[in-house]
């Protein structure tokens, strides 16, 4: 059964797509985690839902490009609101995040039920955006993911020093004369892009974990940013591949939760056994008598 799977070109397409996606999300997620903004990805992915549904209601088709454009637009609006509400009112950031993600998701759900009233059969697959269905990934979807991954990678390398400063000391970065606001906006745009291409495979509910978990795992193994980004990318790619394999092998299981489970498992394992930072390891060094 597994051998059959490996001979199936569709499987390789899907596995390649999920791995690329996991890799790019993992690498980019490092910056979200280091900037203590892990949950902004959660807001973006939930906020993407109304955009997807609205794009469907306007175009009437399930073609991915317009849906993902809608997703990116509303994800961007959601993230902007989550940042602006605490700046322009007495509401604290955590409340703004929770509010924006749940309300946008609610609007999206209302839109989904409106779409379901349409007589056409085209809406049938819209709810796959909730938990993701990587199995439906086509060759050109993978090409789109690859293109986006290249774009994100190019920006990461091109502005490496800037990102580094932004991740560790934004105040110093501002003092150096870096356009911090513009860089933050660019970082948010890259995250929106990553979230949008990840939605068909992982779904809006769990997409944020693909940003957070690989980075949290990588953080346990190294203190250097370069290594952390590479490691997080590798962890993410591995989770994408393994999750797809399990999903394809087990039949009806949705891909998103499996990919996320793989990534979270790696994070948990890293938290426990990583050298120097691992929780088990540290306990042992404590137990050793001094001197």
């Amino acid at each position, binding site marked *: 059964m597994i051998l059959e799977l490996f001979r199936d070109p569709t499987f390789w397409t899907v596995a390649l797509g999920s791995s690329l996606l996991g890799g790019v999300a993992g690498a980019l997620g490092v910056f979200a985690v280091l900037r203590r903004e892990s949950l902004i*990805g959660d807001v973006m992915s939930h906020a993407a839902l109304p955009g997807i549904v609205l794009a469907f209601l306007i175009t009437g088709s399930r073609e991915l490009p317009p849906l993902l454009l809608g997703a990116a637009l509303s994800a961007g609006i959601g993230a902007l609101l989550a940042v602006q509400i605490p700046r*322009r009112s007495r509401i604290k950031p*955590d409340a703004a995040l*929770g509010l924006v993600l*749940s309300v946008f998701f609610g609007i999206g*759900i209302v839109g989904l039920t409106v779409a379901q009233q349409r007589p056409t059969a085209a809406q049938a697959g819209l709810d796959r955006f909730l938990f993701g269905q990587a199995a439906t990934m086509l060759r050109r979807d993978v090409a789109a993911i690859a293109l986006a991954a290249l774009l994100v990678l190019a920006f990461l390398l091109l502005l490496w020093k800037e990102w580094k400063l932004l991740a560790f000391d934004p105040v110093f970065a501002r003092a150096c004369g870096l356009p911090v606001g513009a860089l933050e906006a660019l970082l948010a745009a890259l995250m929106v892009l990553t979230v949008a291409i990840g939605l068909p495979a992982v779904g809006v509910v769990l997409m*944020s974990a693909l940003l957070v978990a690989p980075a949290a795992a990588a953080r346990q193994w190294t203190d250097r940013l370069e290594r952390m980004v590479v490691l997080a990318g590798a962890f993410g790619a591995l989770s994408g591949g393994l999750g797809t394999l399990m999903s394809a092998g087990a039949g*009806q299981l949705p891909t998103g939760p499996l990919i996320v489970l793989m990534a*979270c498992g790696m994070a948990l394992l890293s938290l426990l056994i990583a050298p120097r930072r691992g929780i088990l390891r540290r306990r042992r060094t404590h137990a050793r008598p001094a001197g």
Partner: protein
Amino acid sequence: MLAPQVEIMLVAALAGAACALPGAFLLLRRMVLIGDAISHSVLLGIVAAFLIVRDLRSPMLLLGAASAGVLTAGLAEALLRSGRLKEDAAIGLVFPAMFSLGVVLIARGAGSIRLDLDAVLLGELAFAPFDRLTWGGWDLGPRGAWVMGTLLGLHIVFLLAFYKELQLAAFDPDLAQVFGFWPAWLHYAWMALTSLTVVAAFDVAGVVLVVAMLVAPPATAYLLTDGLGRMLLGSVGLGVAMAMGGYSFAHAFDVSIAGAMATAGGLLFALAWIGGPRHGLIARRRQATQQRWRLAMQLLAVHLLSHEGTPAEAEESALAHLPSHLRWKPDFAIAVIRRAEAAGWVIQEGERLRLTEAGRQAAREALMEGEWVFLLR
């Protein structure tokens, strides 16, 4: 038996009120994201308990769910304390792990479990009238109404019994802890009650939208009121309004009830954020504008006062010279002088401006406040 719509409304309103109270404290204690995490991991608790007892109506499910909620909060806290992860990453790691495990378990056992993913995400409020509580052959009404009503009652009792403690813990958690006003058992009792409410509301609104019921009413009330008591009352009122408004909308347009309730909550918040009295965007802008005019008027008064009775008075108080002395644009200067005249601080005498007694008083007060100093930069 009441009409089904009325019963659904009743359940929704009770759920709105019961969620708003713990939500208000989550908001004040900056623990909204813990609430979000709990609402996701509750799923794993329900599924795990079901796999053990194999009965969807067993109270064990509720217990499993509530313990999953407390476990989530505990795990996130333990990860944070271990120093390996910051709070946001700890929360962002724990709840997706538990939630995806729950989803996978449901998908594996599909068919044997009636819990389907749509119900998980959206709740089953529309079916509330079919799940009835009977006792000795008597139909006591929808079970949901009793569950939410009981929880609301528990919250009110808890609130009345520990109002001072809750108040202190909300506004100064460190002080509350140091002085032993908020001991660990009280914290976990409160967390357990909160988890239980989230679990119960899970049936009504589903995973993500429970968060809307927890946070939207208190956040809106927080923008509209000052003081804990008023905020709590406002939260409950807004929670009921959000639930009933959302249900009416959903009923009229035949869309998802939970989605419409969250949308209604967002709408209420948006209205309060933009148009709220005191804390709204418009009110804040108006206050800022008024403040700017007041400072300008004070500067004018101080300027006139400081030159009163000096040889330069004629020159310094000449209407034609004021803009250049105060470095104001002529239009702005005219507007300020108009406002100062209207306030009775200055009167125009020919080509000169003279302070009234009220104006002198205002200038002295401004000097005492020291606010004008900032304008002299």
